[in-house]
């Protein structure tokens, strides 16, 4: 899980270079991640982890933080 979190953190840093990922509590609520950046992130996640994200999983809760994104990936890997 820690390894997944680290990879997610790196992805976010690449997609959102101007955002302080470590000090942003809610990436969606703060506006750092919107519908377009979420798609970029999903694309990166799917390439990196070879999983498939469905529209049902595109929720603010799932993309709110590094932890929640990592948890989503963990869930998809278990399917």
């Amino acid at each position, binding site marked *: 899980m820690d390894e997944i979190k680290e990879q997610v953190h790196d992805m976010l840093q690449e997609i959102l270079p101007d955002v302080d990922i470590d000090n942003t509590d809610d990436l969606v609520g703060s506006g750092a991640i919107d519908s377009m950046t979420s798609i970029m992130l999903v*694309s990166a996640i799917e*390439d990196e982890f070879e999983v498939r994200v469905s529209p049902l999983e595109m929720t603010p809760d799932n993309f709110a933080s590094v932890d929640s994104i990592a948890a989503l990936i963990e869930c998809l890997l278990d399917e």
Partner: protein
Amino acid sequence: MSLTAWKGLALYLGAFLPLVYIAYFIVPKRWRWIVLLGASYAFFWNSSKILVVYLIAATLVTWGSGLLIERAKNSIQKPEGRKETRDERKQRRAITQKRMRLVCTIGTLILLGILVVLKYGSFIQGVFIELFKADAKLPLAKIALPLGISFYTMSAVGYVIDVYRGKYAACHNLGTIALFLSFFPTLTEGPIGRFDELAPQLRAGEIARGERLVYGLQLIVWGMIKKIVIADRIAPLVGMIFTDHTKYEGVMVIIAAALYTLQLYADFSGVVDIARGSSELCGITLAQNFRQPFFSKSVNEFWRRWHMTLGGWLRDYVFYPVSLSGATRSLSTWARKHLKGNAVRIVPTILALLAVWSATGIWHGADWKYLAYGLYYFALVMVGMLLEPLFVAFFERTGIKRDGLLNSGIAMVRTIALVIIGMMLFRADTLADFVQMFKSIFAGPGTEPLVNNLWLSFRVSDADLNIALIGGALMLAVDIAHEFDIALRPLLLRHGTALRWAVGIALVAFMLTFGAYGPGYDAIPSIYANF
């Protein structure tokens, strides 16, 4: 507002709504939803008569699709007496998923098909005639639209897709689906409802008392002020300039476009406030549809604050599915391998953005200008994305804070200007008219009507303008308070009943005194009711 339109509004507020509330209050809690269903169908019948068959058809398709998706999901049972293997589970899911997708697709196509035929049939027919230079009379004349078809169809399609995605279980109760689609406050101009948020409230049978009742009434009064004091007063001037647009240029065209923007905001948000207030009386909270849109610093942000339920619907049911489609995934993988920098971000989103903005445009109506309206925002968003690295470099080099007061102010003014141009396109009778109007802005100053005080020739007196501007200032003040998270009603509550009553009576008096209704005022139907 014409006598007919005023009678309609007076009938709604003076008779229909009080009767619904009284019946809702009297009837036992578990049957209150039937009062709402009866009232909704009565409301629909009053407006659309026999066209109620389309609403009934949409209801049956929606309800049936949900049940069939559920049946498809459970169509293959797990093996009995032993644990299902991973491969068996995968295979079972693949087959049931395929069946569910088929039902969802058919249900969605039927619902959208009804909308497309009724709303776009004669337009599509016209395009074919134009393309093939046909001279024949084709069967589809301009068909009368059932009330709210654009709104309830989207709610219906959202429900079917949500059941398919497994967001919630299918609803077995036909009455609940019927009420969800026909709920009378939302029929005219939305907001577009989500089943899991609205249906439980519709069935709960809660009733507003005390503070919630007052809140509902306050919202209704506020909505009325926006509609009949602000929007309906500006409408004649806007109509005059847009109708005879070849006579005007320069600042007059800009004023007309800006006033139309104010008119549309006041009209649309006003009617939605009346809808939300009406719902609150029955203990139902509808989704918010506006969040101080003119404080936006980009057009992207504007569309997250304007007609929010439409934007949310398009995001969930168009943007995400297209973005996550095979074609977009392939494009995204290709972009990450072959492109650099900003292009990697932009290219994968082109298809989804094009789909969303095209849908935004044509949802509003069957005309090329509406498609152009949607594509206008697509172009703005794409340009914004392409220029993003330049903006980033500019702010880095100059040291100006991007979210500082100066830049935020500039960004807001820029966004308002872009929105006003879009509204000019939206209001113009045709695309060609918009092009002519846009060019005329630069043709000359166009200040003669202002200098010579020709407002009266527009059937707009100084008093009309002043009242509309005072109303607009009041609306702006309320929006400023909300933007800074100042909740006005609790604020009033804290300062005692006397002040609250005084403000309430003042607002009602303002509405009754300065509302544009009665003899001498022309018909101003609610703008978004046409969609």
